[in-house]
């Protein structure tokens, strides 16, 4: 790519094009800057908890502004997630003692239903920025952040601990400083998982953006100017046309971010691929081609390149990326024990406080009640996974085995998966209200709206990865339909299906919090379930019940992962990996 440009003839030929590229890149950057300045103005708008309106204007002319504000929130959360990922994952991978605490913590955090905590965080953030909308803004960003960060952290941690041993040895022998090691070795080697997980998590983040822009928490309704609030208001007005309009804008936004941000990023990240695992089809991006053709990035590189050496020197104070060969075993032991005692004491202290809190407020009878409600929601999750499997596995296999179809379908499915399902809730709710179907059953559909796509696109990926040799062998053996499914397709897609199933089930649990109580116009439908329980407690600001609800749901999710999904995963790894 870059190397080709050393030929003079090429250079001459591509001149005019290059100038256009420069201009386009420059204009794009300028527009982006203006947008940022304009949007950041709104962030610190005055806000008074008592008089703040519970709705935003539904004037369609405001929609672009709302969409941009929402987008800003998404990117702020992404930035925060990246910083968190770098710090947390590095601490977990490089510090022997903290790993023992940070990893299990991450495992649990991944399974905690984030929406349940909004009431706690919102109160905290409003108190932090009194009289300004910034508090509300932060609470929303925090909610999105919590939906993105764990996945990315886990991916980066994995790449750090599975770094090739030789790279580690080479960096130590070259005497890189900790700073240099991080930026020249650790971040580049983790770039591909980081970017891909960032993209997936960003897709999941839309859901929480929509959920966190219009909230009823602690008997109070909060709205933030944004596309989620727009839909919430339009739904309250039972204005279907405006809901549809917002859905259109949302689709444009999801597709646009994909095309202008993630696609170029994934294509760019290909350079960080270690050659052993060459991608079959490297992602390409027009935007990236445009950027590469322009001289702007090079110029920027030259300007910022000058900062590298001084930064290296300053950050050298953190020392070499080296650990001493010998440690005193006694001191090490003593350190371990002190650390363990402090951690255990912290956990014990937290647990007692929680128990005292529950005993003082709601009492333990609630736990049993919540567990029962959990069973109902669990039933919905099972129904969802079973039905989605029956529907999407055959379709996914068909798409995956037809290269032409899958080339068309793959991006569509990816957009569907990242499209916030709660955006479509008003439409379905409208139908439910009109037909009088109970939300106890309709809730399954609402939960499935977001979760099912994970099964579909993982099955597609699995099916398209079936080696051609095996398919030809099956054709050659004239396997009848039934045998073909049982002996070839199902075993081959099993590992991908398990991945999809875990994600779908996890997403469904989280979605139950917004799917088990929905309203359209003046009608509010409520289903029996743990999600409704948490939502109810959040609206009322009942700390004890929020705590119980969230804890019970986490218990269900973690328990199921351990007892069911993880076993399937091990089986898949052992027997069905191609």
């Amino acid at each position: 790519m870059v190397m080709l440009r050393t030929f003079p003839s090429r250079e001459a030929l591509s001149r005019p094009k290059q100038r256009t590229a420069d201009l386009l890149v420059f204009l794009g950057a300028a527009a982006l800057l203006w947008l940022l300045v304009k949007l950041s103005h709104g962030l610190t708008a005055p806000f008074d908890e008592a008089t703040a309106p519970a709705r935003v204007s539904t004037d369609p002319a405001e929609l672009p502004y709302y969409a941009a504000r929402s987008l800003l929130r998404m990117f702020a959360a992404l930035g925060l997630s990246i910083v968190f990922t770098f710090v947390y994952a590095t601490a977990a991978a490089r510090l022997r003692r903290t790993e023992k605490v940070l990893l299990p913590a991450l495992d649990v955090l991944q399974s905690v239903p984030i929406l349940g905590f909004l009431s706690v965080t919102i109160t905290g953030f409003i108190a932090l920025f009194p009289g300004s909308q910034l508090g509300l803004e932060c609470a929303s960003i925090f909610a999105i952040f919590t939906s993105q960060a764990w996945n990315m952290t886990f991916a980066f941690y994995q790449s750090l601990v599975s770094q090739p041993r030789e790279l580690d040895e080479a960096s130590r022998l070259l005497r890189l400083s900790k700073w240099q090691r991080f930026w020249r070795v650790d971040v580049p080697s983790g770039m591909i998982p980081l970017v891909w997980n960032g993209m997936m998590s960003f897709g999941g983040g839309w859901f929480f953006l929509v959920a966190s822009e219009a909230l009823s928490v602690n008997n109070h309704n909060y709205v933030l100017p944004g596309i989620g609030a727009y839909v919430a208001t339009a739904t309250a007005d039972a204005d279907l046309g405006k809901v549809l309009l917002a859905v259109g804008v949302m689709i444009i936004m999801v597709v646009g971010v994909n095309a202008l941000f993630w696609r170029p990023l994934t294509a760019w990240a290909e350079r960080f691929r270690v050659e052993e695992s060459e991608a079959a089809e490297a992602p390409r991006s027009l935007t990236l081609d445009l950027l590469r053709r322009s001289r702007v990035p090079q110029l920027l590189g030259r300007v910022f390149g000058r900062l590298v050496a001084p930064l290296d020197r300053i950050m050298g104070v953190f020392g070499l990326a080296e650990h001493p060969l010998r440690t005193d075993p006694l001191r090490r032991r003593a350190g371990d024990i002190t650390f363990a005692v402090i951690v255990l004491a912290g956990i014990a202290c937290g647990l007692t406080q929680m128990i005292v809190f529950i005993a003082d407020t709601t009492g333990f009878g609630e736990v049993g009640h919540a567990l029962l409600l959990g069973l109902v929601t669990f039933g919905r999750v099972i129904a969802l996974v079973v039905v989605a499997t029956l529907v999407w596995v055959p379709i996914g296999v068909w798409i995956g085995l037809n290269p032409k179809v899958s080339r068309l379908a793959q991006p569509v499915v990816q957009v569907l998966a990242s499209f916030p399902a709660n955006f479509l809730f008003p439409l379905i709710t409208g139908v439910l209200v009109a037909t009088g179907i109970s939300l106890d059953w309709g809730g399954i559909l609402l939960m499935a709206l977001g979760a099912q796509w994970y099964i579909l696109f993982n099955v597609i990926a699995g099916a398209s990865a079936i080696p051609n040799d095996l398919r030809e062998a099956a054709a050659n053996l004239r396997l009848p339909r039934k045998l073909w499914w049982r002996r070839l397709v199902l075993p081959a897609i099993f590992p991908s299906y398990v991945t999809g199933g875990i994600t779908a089930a996890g997403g469904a649990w989280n979605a139950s919090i917004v799917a088990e109580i929905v309203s359209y116009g003046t009608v509010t439908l409520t289903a029996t379930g743990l999600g409704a329980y948490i939502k109810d407690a959040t609206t009322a600001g009942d700390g004890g019940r929020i705590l119980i609800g969230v804890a019970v749901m986490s218990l269900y999710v973690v328990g199921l992962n351990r007892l069911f999904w993880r076993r399937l995963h091990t089986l898949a790894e052992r027997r069905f990996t191609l």
Partner: protein
Amino acid sequence: MPALITVDQVSKSFTGAAGDELRVLDNITLDLREGEIVALLGRSGSGKSTLLRTIAGLIAPTSGTVRYRGTELGGANPGAAMVFQTFALMPWLTVQDNVELGLAARGVPTAERRERALAAIDLIGLDGFESAYPKELSGGMRQRVGFARALVLEPDLLLMDEPFSALDVLTAENLRNELMSLWTGSKFPTRSICVVTHNIEEAVLLADRVLVLGANPGHLRAEITVDLDRPRDRKSPAFAALVDHLYDLLTGRETDAAEPEPADATPTARPLPPASVGGLAGLVEIVHARGGRADLPDLAAELNFEVDDLLPLVDAAALLDFLLVTGGDLHLTPTGEAFTTADIQRSKEIFAGQARDRAPLVRTIRRALEAGAHGTLRAGFFRDLLRRGFSATDARQQLDTAIDWGRYAELFDYDTNTDRITLDTTSVHT
């Protein structure tokens, strides 16, 4: 010549998962002096890479000391640079940036860095490739980047961990020769080289001294001084004699170590060589085709086999008494002849008989199964037993080999789903 590196009574043990100690290096003492190339030659499991890494200061010895110019190492050796078997280049940096990385770490100013990197790139024959990324280069070119990255630091000591074994034969030969002509010239920036290899000819070609390491645990077996003029001629009788001698050392039994006869050894005292039945049968066949006698170095050269690939087969054939190894030569035994000339069923029976009598682990498993009431046992049981004498990976490999042999011999069978080993009841030999 003064010693650059002093390795004094170094032992290294790794702690297994069960808390058991596994000794990898045992009481090793050696010096690396200025102006010499030393080869550490040994088979897999002799701890040669571990020894190199203690010299590099990447891992700490369990006991004993490693000194660089008299100072005990407390971290990565400041006077050493390393060239890796897998190159270990940063795939996201260009050739130039890869070579500059070590200089950047030392805070060398940008202009000087560039100049020195270009000089090193020039020296190693990489000019024109400065802006290429490693994945655009062939294996040989990549390893040149590895050399440039090490040499640009002008270290006292250049450490090489099987630097040519990932390259094809011709490329490896070419790079070895260029390295040697640089070394004999005046421009070579390091004072000493220490190279780990399992390739006997490579050791004789490169080194002034060859240190032969024995396995289980790794220990120094012999020190051979190579007094040949450079460039060395592979065809010369002196060269061939040295190669033969080294083959003899590597395949022969150690005179001082008491290695029990296969027939009454325990599975940990006589580990199974990691050889497949097909591989060892093929080797026996070749020896038979050559009239019952073959010269090991010739065979290795002809089959284009690395010693690490060939020797396990030789060991397995010797363990089962199909071949006899003396002085770098292979001789077919009567059993071996019967094994290779019989029809499939008969040769399976011969194999079964030999494996049951002479392969300690196979024998142990078979006896345990026969002694049990149901003729079936968890594979984990044997794995746990093996963990007393092997690392987790080695224990698994031992069991895998035993299962492979046992299945072929129809002595016992293994079920992956239940992880159980079962007596093969269909077997004809009881």
